[in-house]
């Protein structure tokens, strides 16, 4: 009894902090999503109405929400594999016995991660520029027609993906480098003796040994990518023609630009449900592929 009490006393500070700064705001947000809290309610609480599920219904009926969801899924489906693939490829190159100046390259490839989105976005806007941009200059030297990266609704999202992948792959690369170093060299040696080529070694040793790391990196990257916000906020403001509005950007506009905090909270919870579902799906998939072995 006394011991239990002592236990509670010890964790009380942490519990209080978590309760105050996590549970309470989340609960308040959930409550807010069932109300029509807006500018008028801010002026006078008597203007607040209980909205039930109206916010959710309205958000689900909003074409822009589905468009934002589509944009976000596009970003996740194209961006996550690209990001993970690139980090894995770079990690493998860095681990290769042929690589020279490893610490230099490791730092150089990791550098974008520690830069500020806003500052780098300004530079990338120049790179993406139709007439004076480096990307189009390279394209022109290959004989390609200039692409209006940030002005064409069809190209704006690919441009954002390119930028985000460049900005973020370094973090995963470092995790992969660590995981690769943990794979015992004996395994490769044994495989070589059995006559396995480089590709077989990669598929049958490297990938399975990286399994848990891949899952971790996959889940982390995906949850990060679902929360796309800063890149379109800085580079395109959701445009052109709403082609880079993400779910989070929609929430920001509803909440802090138009002060429909009720509806913004509903958007936030819908995104939360979606992310939980997708993460669960991914875990399930990972468990199923592990079990037969």
């Amino acid at each position, binding site marked *: 009894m006394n011991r239990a009490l002592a236990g509670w006393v010890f964790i009380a500070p942490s519990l209080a902090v978590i309760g105050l700064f996590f549970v309470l705001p989340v609960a308040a947000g959930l409550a807010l999503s069932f109300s*029509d809290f*807006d*500018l*008028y309610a*801010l*002026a*006078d609480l*008597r*203007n607040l*109405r209980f909205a039930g599920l109206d916010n959710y219904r309205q958000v689900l009926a909003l074409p822009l929400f589905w468009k934002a969801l589509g944009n976000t899924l596009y970003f996740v489906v194209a961006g996550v594999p690209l990001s993970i693939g690139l980090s894995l490829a770079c990690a493998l190159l860095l681990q290769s016995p042929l690589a020279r100046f490893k610490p230099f390259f490791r730092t150089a490839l990791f550098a974008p991660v520690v830069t500020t989105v806003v500052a780098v976005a300004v530079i990338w*806007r120049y790179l993406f*520029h*139709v*007439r*004076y941009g480096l990307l189009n200059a390279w394209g022109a030297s290959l004989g390609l027609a200039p692409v*209006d990266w*940030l*002005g064409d*609704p069809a190209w704006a999202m690919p441009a954002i993906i390119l930028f985000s992948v460049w900005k973020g792959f370094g973090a995963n690369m470092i995790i992969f480098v660590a995981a690769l170093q943990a794979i015992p060299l004996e395994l490769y040696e044994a495989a070589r003796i059995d006559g396995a080529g480089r590709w077989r070694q990669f598929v049958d040793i490297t990938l399975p040994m990286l399994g848990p790391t891949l899952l971790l990196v996959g889940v982390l990257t995906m949850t990060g990518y679902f929360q796309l916000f800063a890149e379109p906020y800085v580079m*395109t*403001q959701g*445009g*052109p*023609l*709403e082609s880079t509005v993400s779910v989070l950007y929609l929430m920001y506009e509803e909440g*802090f*630009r*138009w*002060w429909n905090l009720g509806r913004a909270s509903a958007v936030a919870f819908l995104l939360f449900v979606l992310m939980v579902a997708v993460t669960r799906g991914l875990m399930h998939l990972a468990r199923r592929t592990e079990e037969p072995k």
Partner: protein
Amino acid sequence: MTMPRRRAFIAGAAGVAGATLGLGGCRRGDADAPLRFWAMGREGEVLETLLAPLLREQPRLRVRVEKLPWSAAHEKLLTAFAGDATPDMAQLGNTWIAELAALGALLPLDAGAAGLDAADHFAGIWRSNEVDGRLLGVPWYIDTRLMFYRHDLFRRAGVPSMPGDWPGLVRALDALQRSGVAHPLLLPLNEAEPLLALALQQDDPLLRDGGRYGDFRSAGFQRTLAFYIERFARGHAPFLTNNQISNLWQEFGRGSFAAFISGPWNIGELDRRLPTELQGLWSTAPLPGPVPGGRFGASTAGGSSLVVFKRSHRQQQALQVLAFLGRPQTQLHFHALTGNLPPRRSTWALAPLAGERRAAAFLQQLELAKPTPAVPEWERILQEMQLQAARAHRYGTPVADAAAALDERVDGFLAKRRWMLARGALRARAA
């Protein structure tokens, strides 16, 4: 944590808490605390210089200017209200007045008070400061949109000056195209003001029933929308957003386009940025109007106003500052410092402003300026209007369908306002 260090930590925390309380106390009670004045952008930078004569006149008056960036100002004002931390007075974009009025944050001003001479102001701008018949702000500087154009290119195409009506403008744009300017009129697709200005030229109001519903299906707005979209369809205007034009002034100097619709700040920008050989080649002119044979049309009534907050404990001092900034001599000084155009006719009559050729077109346009509906939802409605117009062009939506879709969205934005009006929590005025 060792003992002395922990004590230092606690002392530090107490100090921070004390300082916070002290600040709070300062803001509320202390009568000697300076007047807090929020101002944005360039105006914030020159305000101290501008106020210096007043502070010499009144040594007991102290003003603390707090500068905000324009991009964050709107959010800061709303959060300041939510957090009970509004300043004593502020500069406010006049389209935001309705929003802060809905919050009940602004002090109603006495239109007859000293220094506030309504008849000396431009009617359209003055009305943009009124919500439900009450005056909540005083115009500080004004902003309307009109044509900047290269008269050398117009003349080369055989057009002596900016036409006064839409059919004339269309003929001029055709002639410019023939003379080699592929897209003579710049209408950036993500900028709502040009379309808004053209829409205000019609007699139909943009909202109906006291701001309860959108009225974009009116014949007038549909005419404007059709005219706007046709400019892109016929290549008179390039299909571009602001982000895609790297340097407006340079492209204007190069003759990539011959005319664009913009505000007073571009007089200064073009003066500064165009090379001397181009300086004599550009002019300003009021916007052409929709009535064939008519003489120029209306435009927007924008700009910034000065407001006093209801929660301020220094309202008397704030009103003094307000009156000082409204003096014609102060406004002339302000114009010299920033290039902003003054809101009073008596200031315009003073030298050197009276002699400025390019500002004269603004004076003419200001007499025709019309305010936008004073509803808090206006910013959002404006953005939706521009979006639907850009979309109608891109996807070839018929004008009537685009207008109907816009009305439907706008009615949704105004739903809460209708409920508020129905239960008497708001007073409606023909918006």
